[in-house]
């Protein structure tokens, strides 16, 4: 017996659905379903749904999105600083 390893085919088949039903893409005042609730809806066992969700949360966006995040924060902080602190020299290029 080894650590639980999700079947990649099961993952590919259900990942979008699980992401849609959980709390990944939120609408205000509409909580997502728990893993148990998702499992009941999709006819899977809860452990499998948990595993699909964990992998899908991480897999949702590529590492490119992280690079974009770094640049986004750099620019947004500088733009705000330039405006709020009255320091036009800080405005990003």
């Amino acid at each position, binding site marked *: 017996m080894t650590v639980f390893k999700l079947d990649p085919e099961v993952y590919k088949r259900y990942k979008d659905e699980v992401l849609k039903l959980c709390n990944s893409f939120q*609408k205000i005042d509409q*909580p997502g379903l728990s893993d148990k609730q998702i499992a009941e809806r999709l006819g899977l066992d809860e452990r499998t749904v948990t595993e699909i969700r964990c992998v899908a*949360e991480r897999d949702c966006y590529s590492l490119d999105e992280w690079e974009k995040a770094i640049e986004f924060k750099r620019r947004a902080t500088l733009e705000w600083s330039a405006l709020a602190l009255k320091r036009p020299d800080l405005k990003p290029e």
Partner: protein
Amino acid sequence: MTTEERLKAVGLKAGARVVGIAPVEAFREKVPEGYRPEDILPGARSVVVAGGDGPTAGAWRCPDHRVMEITGYDLRENVAVHAMCDFIEGTLSHHAIQAPSLPVHGHEPPMSMMHAAELAGLGTRSLAAHIILNPEYGLLYYAALITTLPLEPDQPLAEPACPHPGCAAMYKRIGTTPCLRVCPACLNGTVQDGRIQQSTYDREKCHSRAQTYGIGSFQKGLLQIVNEDDPERRRTMIYSDFFTKSIQSLGFFRDSIAQCFECMRVCPVGRKYRKLQ
């Protein structure tokens, strides 16, 4: 002093900015089974929520976003929760536990601190990532305790903190608000008659911003590294700035667990507390 006042005084003295109380029954409406306070502590009657300050006013003014990436969090609301737990067990002889709030399966914690804060009357959901905004202080961080002690609960706020009147006016003028404008990647929403009409939040995209360097980036980087066949390229990836920062952030994750503040930076709620000399 009532028991509730004594308890809140303990929490405030220990560093909380605000303290509120919710009855466990209130969690049943929106929280699925398995994630409610009574699922965690048998005989639970009350949830006491402490809200602690976010970054200092000075930190908000730093033009280098890396500063708040590293020091945006100081966990004092957790200290307040421990102090209140000790008081409840030591003085009032009722069971009290810190509510488990760390993620245990992917992004999911055993109990939502945000929802607890809403039910305890400490804030309301906002357009900005559905962050709970306290109407007076704006962004606060929340921790909670669960106890068998019956307490007179506070009520959820009748008036939402978001949208701020300035944001409602802005939306009327130009169809957006400061937070929606600064981060359209993660946020979307509409305002009507001074209230949030609808709001969506892409948590997975936000994760790449709010926890740029952390568990997620470490896993992503590691997968790329193990899949790289060329040893020279692999070496540059392992020693890269990005992967190094990711590993470093694991060591100090408690302090750097919040790494993006852009939607809150432009939020007017509580901003008066950021204007100092």
